[in-house]
Structures are given as structure tokens and as C-alpha cells.
């Protein structure tokens, strides 16, 4: 009797084991990392975006018949923690690729990890130019338009302004520094007559807005470049409005048109700033309509830019996995290079030369409508049109 029981038990174990294995084989896992606890204002819509994408992909039959599963981890806003999370995803969860990240230094940390461990990494949000250029590597791709691209889009509009005396306000860390540097370089190329009369570098998240606004006003610029965002932007705008800093001055501002940063300003929204952003309310294309409808139906909320980024990150990742039909990182790279995928903002391509996607951004002007900030006169700028020449890119990017 006893031996028979053992036999049945063993057979059962084999059966269960076999079933578990076959379930495993029908799943493809993507490991996703982002600063959920540190930056909930940005990452909540982002998460909703990628969850919608996962649902759509699986409803349409998954990736070559396999179910897509996204395993998501928080990095608590620290590069070291992001690497721990990446390690867990790769070593314990056995994910096919890594995706996500928001802050530039975390994106770089994960990209370095991916390079070392030979894992495919699709960076979602980090804006730093270094991730695809000076510190680029063959395992890392990036979705969002980089600092350089956004600067180039803004310069196109800014260089048409009559203003000759410019001042800059930017958070004192890599993002702010490189945004100002690229903007200045491109602007001075187009307009050699421009003077840079003042620069202010408040610490990120700790702007003492009153003195900063006064200092800028004292230099009496005709136009101002702003790179601050989030709570710093709110303080800057409020002080600037009260003290009349923006009156009769042109302002060009990075990211301010994104709902994440524009919406909190409400009736304080300054009018006529030239900004990059995402005016979801005025985009009238079939791709975007479909996305908007699906998003609003699922969440009963409007999308932020983070929603687009989250959605498109997972959509792109799925397209790469489907084309490669394998989880081998080398095959994933081969599939991703030059791959074109549809997006709510039109088709985008992952460039072979530097692994940057050609996702663009909207450039427009801020306006106040019914006590809320909106973007008007906005136009979509394709990312492909705002990148330096291939020769320049090759010079910047280290050889693999």
C-alpha cells in the first residue's frame, strides 16, 4: 500500500510540476522599475498607462500567444535601490527585459546594470542625454524625447522672439544644468546677437523663490528660460506673478505644459509661456482618440503625460518581444534597432544609431481657461526632426 501511495504522490508531483512549467512557458515577464513612493504625482498616471497597455496586449492574444506579465518594483528614488530591484527582477523573477525609471541618475544606474549583466533595458522617462550618447550602451534604449530634443524644439520657437537679453532659472542638478547648456548652445548658434544676462540655480525642491525672482528681475532680461518644475515651479510662478516678473517678458519653459505640472497652477497659470507639454484635450487624431477613450473608460480620469509614457513603454516593449520572438537579449536588440511602432502620438522608431526613440512632444503656449491652465496653439513636433546629425551622434556615443 505504502509504495503505491508514494508512486501516486510522485506521479502527482510530476503532473503539477509539468503544469507549472507549461504555465511558465506561456508567460513573458517584463521587469518594471520606477520611483512610485518618491514621485507619486508622476508615477501614478504612469502606472495606469502601462496597466492599460498590458490589458490591451493580453486581450489581443498576448505576445505571440504568450501572456504578458509586468512585475513592477519601487526604487524609492535611489540609484542603489534601483539596482537592487533590477537584480531581483533579473535573478529571481527571470524577466525578459527591464523597463521604466524616471530620474536620470536612476536611469543611468539601471542602464549600467543592464550593460554589465547583458539585459535589455528600455528607459521610459529619464531625460538625460548621457543615457543614449556619452554613457550609452548597446543594451539600453530610451523612449522619451531627450533633453536635447526638447531644447531644440523650444529653441525653434524661442529664436523667433525679438528678445536679446536672456536670463535662465534652472534647478541645480544635472537635468537643469544640461537643459540650460543645450538651450544656450543651440540658441546662440541661431541667434549670435543674444546676451545671457543672468542665471539662477536654486537647489531642486528647495527654491527660495522670492530672492530668485528679485535677482532675475534686477538683471532686467527681455526673456527668461525656466527649467524648474513641480513644487519649485509653483513657488516661482506665484512669486513671479506677485512681483510682476513675467509682465512684458517672454518666458520659455521646459515641461511646463505637461498636465502633471500645469494643472496644480490653476488660476495662477501664467499666460503666453512657450512650453513643451501634452495638451490631451486638443489632440484630434484617431490614434490618440482611441487611447483617450480607453483610458477614460478604464480610470474615469484624464491622462497625464506619464500615462502616455507608461502606455507606450509597455506597448513598445511588447512589439520588440513579439518581433524578436525570443527573450535572448541579443535578439531583442536586433529586433528593437530600427523598429517602428504605432503610438497614441503617431508612429515612432527606435533609431539604430543611438537607441533613441523618435517620440516627439507638443510645443505651444500656456493660457488660462475657466480658472485652469491649458496649452493653446500647440503643434506636435516629431522627435526625428530635432536630433543632431548622425556624425555628431557617433562622435558622442562610445563604441560598443
Amino acid at each position, binding site marked *: 500500500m505504502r509504495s503505491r501511495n508514494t508512486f501516486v504522490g510522485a506521479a502527482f508531483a510530476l503532473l503539477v510540476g509539468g503544469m507549472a512549467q507549461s504555465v511558465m512557458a506561456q508567460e513573458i515577464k517584463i521587469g518594471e522599475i520606477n520611483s*512610485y*513612493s*518618491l514621485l*507619486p*504625482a508622476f508615477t*501614478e498616471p504612469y502606472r495606469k498607462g502601462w496597466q492599460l497597455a498590458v490589458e490591451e496586449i493580453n486581450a489581443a492574444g498576448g505576445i505571440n500567444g504568450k501572456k504578458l506579465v509586468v512585475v513592477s*518594483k*519601487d*526604487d*524609492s528614488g*535611489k*540609484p*542603489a*535601490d534601483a*539596482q*537592487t530591484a533590477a*537584480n*531581483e527582477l533579473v*535573478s529571481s523573477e527571470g524577466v525578459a527585459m527591464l523597463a521604466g525609471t524616471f530620474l*536620470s*541618475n536612476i536611469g*543611468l*544606474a539601471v542602464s*549600467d546594470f543592464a550593460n*554589465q549583466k547583458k539585459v535589455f533595458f528600455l528607459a521610459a522617462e529619464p531625460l*538625460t542625454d*548621457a543615457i543614449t550618447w556619452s*554613457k550609452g550602451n548597446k543594451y539600453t534604449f530610451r523612449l522619451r524625447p531627450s533633453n536635447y530634443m526638447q531644447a531644440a524644439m523650444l529653441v525653434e520657437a524661442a529664436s523667433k522672439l525679438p528678445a536679446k537679453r536672456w536670463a535662465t532659472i534652472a534647478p*541645480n*542638478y*544635472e537635468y537643469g544644468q544640461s537643459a540650460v547648456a543645450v538651450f544656450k548652445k543651440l540658441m546662440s548658434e541661431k541667434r549670435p546677437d543674444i546676451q545671457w544676462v*543672468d*542665471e*539662477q*540655480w*536654486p*537647489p531642486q*525642491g*528647495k527654491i*527660495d*523663490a*522670492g*530672492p*530668485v525672482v*528679485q*535677482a532675475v*528681475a*534686477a538683471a532686467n532680461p527681455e526673456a527668461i528660460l525656466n527649467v524648474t518644475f*513641480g*513644487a519649485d515651479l*509653483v*513657488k516661482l510662478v*506665484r*512669486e513671479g506673478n*506677485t*512681483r*510682476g516678473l513675467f509682465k512684458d517678458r517672454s518666458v520659455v519653459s521646459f515641461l511646463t505644459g505637461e498636465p502633471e505640472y500645469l*494643472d*496644480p*497652477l490653476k488660476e495662477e497659470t501664467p499666460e503666453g509661456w512657450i512650453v513643451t507639454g501634452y495638451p490631451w484635450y486638443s489632440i484630434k487624431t484617431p490614434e490618440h482618440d482611441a487611447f483617450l477613450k480607453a483610458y477614460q473608460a478604464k480610470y474615469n480620469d484624464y491622462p497625464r503625460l506619464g500615462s502616455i509614457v507608461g502606455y507606450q513603454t509597455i506597448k513598445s516593449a511588447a512589439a520588440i518581444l513579439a518581433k524578436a520572438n525570443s527573450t535572448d537579449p541579443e535578439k531583442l536588440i536586433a529586433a528593437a534597432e530600427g523598429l517602428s511602432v504605432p503610438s497614441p502620438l503617431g508612429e515612432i522608431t527606435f533609431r539604430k544609431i543611438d537607441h533613441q526613440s523618435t517620440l516627439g512632444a507638443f510645443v505651444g503656449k500656456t493660457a488660462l481657461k475657466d480658472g485652469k491652465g491649458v496649452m493653446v496653439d500647440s503643434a506636435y513636433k516629431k522627435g526625428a526632426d530635432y536630433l543632431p546629425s548622425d556624425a555628431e551622434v557617433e562622435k558622442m556615443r562610445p563604441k560598443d
Partner: protein
Amino acid sequence: MAFYVVQFLTGLASAASLFLVASGLSIIFGVTRIVNFAHGAFYMIGAYIAFTLTDRFSGAFGFWGGIVMAALAVALIGLLVEMVLLRRIYHVPELFQLLATFGLTLMVQDLVVLIWGPDDLVGRRAPGFKGAVDFFGQAIPSYDLFLIVLGPVVLGVLWLLFQRTRWGVLVRAATQDRDMVAALGVNQKWLFTSVFAVGVFLAALGGALQIPRDAVHHAMDLRIIVEVFVVVVIGGLGSIVGAFVAAVLVSELNAFGILIFPKISIILVFLVMAVVLIVRPWGLFGKPEAAARRTPGLTVNPWRPLTQNERLAALAGLIVAATLPLFAGNYALTVASEIAIFVIFAVSLHFLMAVGGLASFGHAAYFGLGTYGIAFLAKMAGLPMIVCLLLGPLMGLAGAAVFGFFAVQLSGVYFAMLTLAFAQIVWSIAFQWVSVTGGDNGILGLWPEKWAASPSHFYWLALGVAALVTIALRIAVFSPFGYALRATRDSLLRSEAIGINAKRMQWTAFVIAGTTAGVGGALFAYLKGSVFPDNLGISLSVDALVMVLLGGVETVSGAVIGAIVYKALNIWLVSQTDLSKLVLGGFIVLIVVVFPKGIVGTLEMLLQRKRSVSPPGSTLLAKPIESAE
């Protein structure tokens, strides 16, 4: 000219907001000696509640009423916190209360997001103070003028409260000599509770008054807490006037500093604090702390080396730890390596705190210098890994030798804050000097060589170094140097009287601790393969403090357990939930209540009690120890 006047007034307005929060912290510290890390959290809750109230009730009455109501509501919360949590832990080692308030801060950060949502909230402007006043062509916001008036008014009210009321007399007496006030029969419980509530009220008022000019969000607390501490210390602990002068000094230096050096804001307060503390060791208006009247022999069980059996047990534990690669996967091994590295970091701080009696708030500086040492040696000099590991910690040594020299001239919280200032200065150099350190994008590609690359090999390396470091520091504790150092900790006067050069002992201890932290940093750089200014940051310094306190500051090696528990729990929670701060904070608060001497400290006490129950003679001895506390 008009511009400079306006810039000066703008600086005064910033100073007023800073002063409101700082005065509360100063009062609380002066009387209760609590380093109230949660002060920023109360400031933030004040802003959130004020936002809700002023949003709901319209009109001028709704606004101003909302502000005051919010501050009162938060004061009530502070009252509850003091009565339920802090009262239980006044008798435990100093700084342990820091752990409790740190736990609260973590919880609040997640709670406000749960209650008010993740978006930045912009409150309405103050009725009657919406616009600006014209001053020779320069605009001054009328709300700034309101704040400029409010600052001195609050200062005056506080002054009256302290000079003209019986309560104020008691508070001042307690600030000067807590034990004497207790001996004279004053009910300390209620004095402490009321002082805490008043301090929290001021913090919340400071937060609530920010809503017309700031955005309300869940990181407000961290933005202000360190700055406020700095202001309090520059002014001199417990001195309200000092806090006011320091707030004005810092704000004005910032307002005019940015005209010449636009990048100065990031480091200014710490530079000012470092200079002030070096010139005036007790802050601008502070007085030297009276020598503590504690008798350490009564509260601390005398330290002794491990017995033969305990040594065998520790060895067995080490052997078990060394067999981990036989059954654990790569991820578990990497996490274990990280924990081993944090054990090194924690025991290095523990050595300084427990043996030297010097609590550093900036210990991450030496850990981070170790990581940058590796980055420079490996990336720029291209040296092999083993050489880097040997030489990298020398950066920590160098930093500790320089900063330690100045820091050990001070004691207590002033020592802690000067170490914090040095750490922030090092951090900002790493952060700003982009061409050398890569700024906040760090230095990448520092992966270990082949012989140490596999997770199991690296784990054995980290474990081995951690064991060696712990043993070496224990040997130091029971060496003549260790005894001399403990003498300076227990009684500076007596130790100097018997011919111990206290400052040199403490400096040596500082250098040993800094170098050891550098060893941990060196391994950390290879574990992560990259180096960031985060490795020098405040949050890492706080982590180290928490590990030491969690283990028990009155133990010889409690930090080992503290580091393992804290780090393992932290990594696990971050991986499991987005609300890791809420759970971790709750856990820390619980630990504080259940293990008031730290995990190891409380266990040792229980063991001691058990032992002393059997021979009747020693129970007699144990009892006065209890009551002496």
C-alpha cells in the same frame, strides 16, 4: 538702492517662515532634549490640513480661521504623540527618541499621500494680501510684509510667555537644569507635554502659513527639517532669540549670496553652520551645556568580552552565514552582500557612538568618500581591484582626519550637527563638481574583477571583511585605547584629571570609524558598480543612525543586529509594497516601544535580569539600578 532694500525685505520674509518652525524645534529640544525629527512632518501636516480647511471655508474668516484651526489640530496630534509614544521613552538613552520621531516621519510621508492624493496642491492666496506693494518701482508682495511683521510678533509673544508666566519660568528652568526642576517637585510630565504641544503648534503654523506661496506636497517635510535644525544650532539650542537671529542671518546671506554665486543656496546654510560652530562651539546665543549628572555605571551593564561559549556561538553564526551560497540564489546573495556592507558601516558608527559617546549625523561622508575613492582609483588610475580595496578607504581616513579634528572640539548635538555640515559640504562637492565626479549622474562601470564577480564570491568577500572589521573593533573596545576612550565618554573631567588626552582619543576614534566606514563604501562601490552623491547623503547617515539605535547604543556590537534587521526589512518592504515607508515607520515605532534599549540592548537586559534572579544577593543590586533610571 531700492533693489537692495527689497531684496533685504524678501530675505526677512523667508527668515520669518523659517523662524516659526525653528522656534518650535528649539523650545522642544531645550526642555525635553528630544531631537524631534518629526518636526518637519508636523509642519507638513499643518500645511495639508490648512489647505483642506481654507479650501472648504470661504472668505477672510475661513482663511485665517482655517490657518489657526489647522495649527491647533496638529498641536493636538502632537499632544497625543507625546503622551502615547514619547512619554514611554524619556528615560532611555539620549537620541533614542530620534528613532521614534524618525519612524513617525516615515509614516506621515506615506499617510499624506494616502489621504490627500499624490498631486501637488496649491492653496488659495491670503485675503487682503494678494497683491504687491510698490517700492520705488520694485514690487514687494504684501504677504511678505505680513510675514515680516509676524516673525517679530511671534518672537515677542514667546518672549512674554517665557519671561512673564509661571509656565515660562518652569520651561526656562527646565532648559537650564532639568534634574533640579524635577527635584523641586515640578510635574515634569505635563511640562514636557505642554512644551511639545507648543512646539508642534509653531511648526504647524509655519506650515499652514506657507500655503499662499508654496505648493503642498508630500516631500515638504524633508525640505525643511534639516534647514530648521541648522538654524536652531546656529542660534544656539534652546535660544529663541538665537533662532530668530540665525534665521535672519541664513536668509539674508542666501538672498544676497545668489546675486554673486547663483549656485550657493545648495550649501550655504551648512557653510554658515560649520563656520559658526568652529568659532562659537555652542552657537551664537547658546550656552555651554552643563555637565551631565548621569552615572553611567548604574545604567549600563559593564561591558565584557565574549565568553568562550559566546565566541563559539558567534563563530557558528558566521559559519552558517558562510554556507548561504550553497542554497541561496543570486538575488539573495547580492542582498546578503549589501547587508554585510551595511554591517560594516553600522559598526563603524557604533564604535564612534557607543564607545566614544560621539553621535555623528554625517557618517555617510566617510562611507561615500570610500566609494569615490574606488571610483577615482579604478576609473582614473586604472588600478586592480585588490589595490583599490586597500587604498580606497584611505579617502575615508583622510576626510575623517580633517573633519574629525574640528568636530571633536565639540560635544553632544553640536558635534552631531558639525559632522552633518561637513557631510553636506562633501556631498555638495560631489554633486557640483561635474567634471570630476560626474555630478548627480555619478560614475558608472565600476564592476568587480572576475575573481570577485560572481555573487557568491562577492558575498564571501563582504562577509569576511564584515567579520574582520567587527572583530577588530571589538578588540579595540577592550584594548587600553578602548578603555581610555570609554573613560572620556563617561566623564570627560575625570578622564582628563587622570592624564588622558581626551581630544586625541576622540580624534583617533573618529579616524578609525571614518576609515572603517570607508571600507564599507569601497565594497559598496563594487557591489553596485557605480557611485552617486547619494552615497554621501543625509538619508544614508540617518540610516546608519537608525541601525545603531535599533541594535542598542549601550551594547558592544548591537549595530550588527540593527544593520541586519533594518536593511533586510527595508529591502524586503521596498520590493513588496509602495507603502514601504508606512510599514517601516510603524515597525520602528513599535520597536522603540517594545525594545526601549534597542533590540540587543533589551535582550541583554532581560538576560541579565534572568541571571540575577537566581543568586539572591544580586537582586538587591538590580533593584536600585531600575529605580535609578
